[in-house]
C-alpha cells in the first residue's frame, strides 16, 4: 500500500506473489524468492508555452530520471507442532512475545546460582 494522491481515492496497491516448494527440517529457515523489481521514472516539468519554445525552451523546463531497484526475499522458519491442541504454538511464539514484553502466562525458568 502506498500514499494516495487524492484523499477521496483508495491508496495504490501493489501485490508481490511468490510460489515455491521446499522440504525443510524442523526449526530450520529457508529463503525463498529473490524477486527483483526495477522501477524507472522519467519526469518533465515545464513552464506553459515558454517551455515549448525551440532551443530557449530548455531554460524553462527541467527533466528528472530516477531508477530504483529492489529485491524481495521471504525468510520462512518451519516449526513442527506436535500437540493436537496446539499447546506448543505458544512455545514457537514465546521468544517473540518475550521480546515484545508480553506475558504469555508460562512461568520463566531462571538459571540457578550457587553461593
Amino acid at each position: 500500500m502506498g500514499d494516495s494522491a487524492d484523499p477521496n481515492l483508495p491508496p495504490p496497491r501493489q501485490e508481490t506473489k511468490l510460489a515455491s516448494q521446499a522440504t525443510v527440517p524442523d526449526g530450520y529457515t529457508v529463503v525463498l524468492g529473490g524477486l527483483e523489481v526495477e522501477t524507472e521514472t522519467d519526469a518533465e516539468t515545464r513552464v506553459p508555452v515558454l517551455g515549448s519554445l525551440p532551443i530557449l525552451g530548455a531554460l524553462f523546463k527541467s527533466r528528472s530520471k530516477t531508477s530504483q531497484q529492489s529485491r524481495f526475499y521471504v525468510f520462512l522458519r518451519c516449526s513442527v507442532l506436535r500437540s493436537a491442541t496446539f499447546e506448543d504454538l505458544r512455545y514457537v511464539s514465546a521468544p517473540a512475545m518475550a521480546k515484545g514484553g508480553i506475558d504469555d502466562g508460562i512461568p520463566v525458568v531462571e538459571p540457578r546460582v550457587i553461593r
Partner: protein
Amino acid sequence: MRAWVLALALVACRSAGAGPYSPTAEAVRDSIRAQELNARAADALATDLDEAESLLRDALSADLFFGPAHNNLGVVYLKQGKLYEAAGEFEWARKLMPGHPDPRMNLALTLEQAGQTDQAIATYKTALEVWPGHIATVQALARIEVLSGRTGPDLDGRLAEIAMRGETESWRAWALRSRMAMSN
C-alpha cells in the same frame, strides 16, 4: 650456552598461562578467596553482569577448580546470550560437582534456549537422576515437555507434583492449567 637456552625455555614455560585462567597449579589454589569472590559475584549477578563476570574470573584465577564459580560464570554468559560459552562453563561445573543438580539444570536450560529440545530434556533428566525430586528441575522439565507437545503419565506426575509443591504460585497455577488442558 645450551644450558642458558634450556633455563630460559623453562622460565618461559613456567610463566606461560596454561588456559583462560591462571595460575592453574594445584599448589596455588586459594579456595577461600575463590569462595569469597564467588559470593560477591552471586550478589552482583542480579544487578551488574560485567562486575559479576570480573569477580568470577578472579575467583577462577584463585582456584580454577572451584565448581560454583564455573557454574555462576555460565549463568553470566547465559544472561548475555553467549550460549556456547555458557554450556562450556556448565560442563566444567558439572564435572567438578557431579552430585549437584544445578549445573546440569543450567546446561539443560542452555540447550533449551539453543533450540535443542530433545537434548535439553535428556539433560534435565540427568539432573533428576542425581537429585530426585529437585523441584526447580521438575518444573523446567515439565515446562519444556508441555511446550514441545509431549504427553504421558510421567509428565502428568510431574505436573501433579508442581501443583502441590511448586516454587511459586505462578508455577502451581500453570501446572493445574496444563493438567486440565491435557485431560480435555
